[in-house]
């Protein structure tokens, strides 16, 4: 399964390259990622939430690193779901910053796990990546993921539908969102 999405952000390509090079920032806007941490030069450990409250983890290696232009990575070892990703930074026309092109591919296995992965991404898997990049744009242009009373959880907005009513949260609800 291959997902692609693009967003245009009002920031220079070099700055966006620097942002993505710190892969630990990805979980702030990518809904399924819980943690990405560097484990060595060009190596990282990824932890993602999976269906039914489970988590999957894998090691990844950076396979391409062109300053200001492109970064690519690929899972290594015996990952449950082999996957790869690439992000390209292209100057946008008209002094409009940078087009950020992201491609994610998952080698979906056969059997129950494959079915669970397919179900997790739903009927429109592209939508999830579109939303991820929308939040990425919020983070780099405004500083953080935008929250509302209806979508107080930030990056979990879509999972929350039907949402919390558009009314302020109680203390208990706030504590749950912040935990």
């Amino acid at each position: 399964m291959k997902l692609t999405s693009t967003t245009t952000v009002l920031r220079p390509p070099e700055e966006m390259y620097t942002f993505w090079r710190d892969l630990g920032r990805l979980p702030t806007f990518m809904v399924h990622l819980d943690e990405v941490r560097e484990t060595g030069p060009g190596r990282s450990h990824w932890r993602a939430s999976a269906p039914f409250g489970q988590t999957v983890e894998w090691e990844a290696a950076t396979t391409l690193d062109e300053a200001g232009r492109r970064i690519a990575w690929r899972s290594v070892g015996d990952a449950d779901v082999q996957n790869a990703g690439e992000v390209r930074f292209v100057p946008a026309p008209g002094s409009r910053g940078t087009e950020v092109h992201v491609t994610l591919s998952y080698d979906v296995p056969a059997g129950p796990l494959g079915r669970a992965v397919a179900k997790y991404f739903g009927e429109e898997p592209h939508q999830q990546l579109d939303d991820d990049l929308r939040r990425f744009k919020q983070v780099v242009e405004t500083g953080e993921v935008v929250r509302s009373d209806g979508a107080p959880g930030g990056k979990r907005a879509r999972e929350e539908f039907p949402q919390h009513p558009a009314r302020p949260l109680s203390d208990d609800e706030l504590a749950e969102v912040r935990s």
Partner: protein
Amino acid sequence: MKALCWTGPNSVEVQDVPDPTILNARDAIIRVTSTAICGSDLHLLDGYVPTMQKGDVMGHEPMGEVVEVGPGVDATKLRVGDRVVIPFPIACGACAACRAELYSCCENSNPNAGIAEKMFGHPVAGIFGYSHLTGGFAGGQAEYLRVPFADVGPLVIESDLTDEQVLFLSDILPTGYMGAEMCDIQPGDIVAVWGADRSASLRWTAPGSWGPSGSSPSTIRATASTWPRPRDTPR
């Protein structure tokens, strides 16, 4: 606090709801001193606009006094104690649309933009009290209101004008102004305005008040020197 909540098609109630809190660093909380009711509230009231949920606080034309600001609010733009009119669209001030002063097209202020994009074919900005398609933000027909990106949208009122003299800056006057501006009114034009609501009445009073000869609801005389045309509008 007390707030006007949508409870189903053609049904609203004043209910007790929690006071708003800071959710993002550039939020402010205002104590609402006045709010208007919009003609478009009727589209929400009767259930025409999808994604309303029971308990949603309505209202997108409020003004009031700033009682709290988040740590990220630019203190040169907004401080506690400021008297402010709140524009109905929520604008981040940082995206390409906001930089072009197209604030109602803000690319960042709607956390549910993906859903709006799916239903409309394009995303829309966040709007206070205007369904979950426009973000699920609580509205201003309430005692207090959380205002995101508070150093961008709110208009600080530094004069001793009354609430009634400035409240229309939130939606009604700019909506009428935009309608008049989009008409690109030229000298000698005769303009008919459909609908006798407040925005429409401001559509004919706005150019008339700056024009040379007054106006009536059925005709407007304007000159190029007194009525700005879109291409003359500074960006």
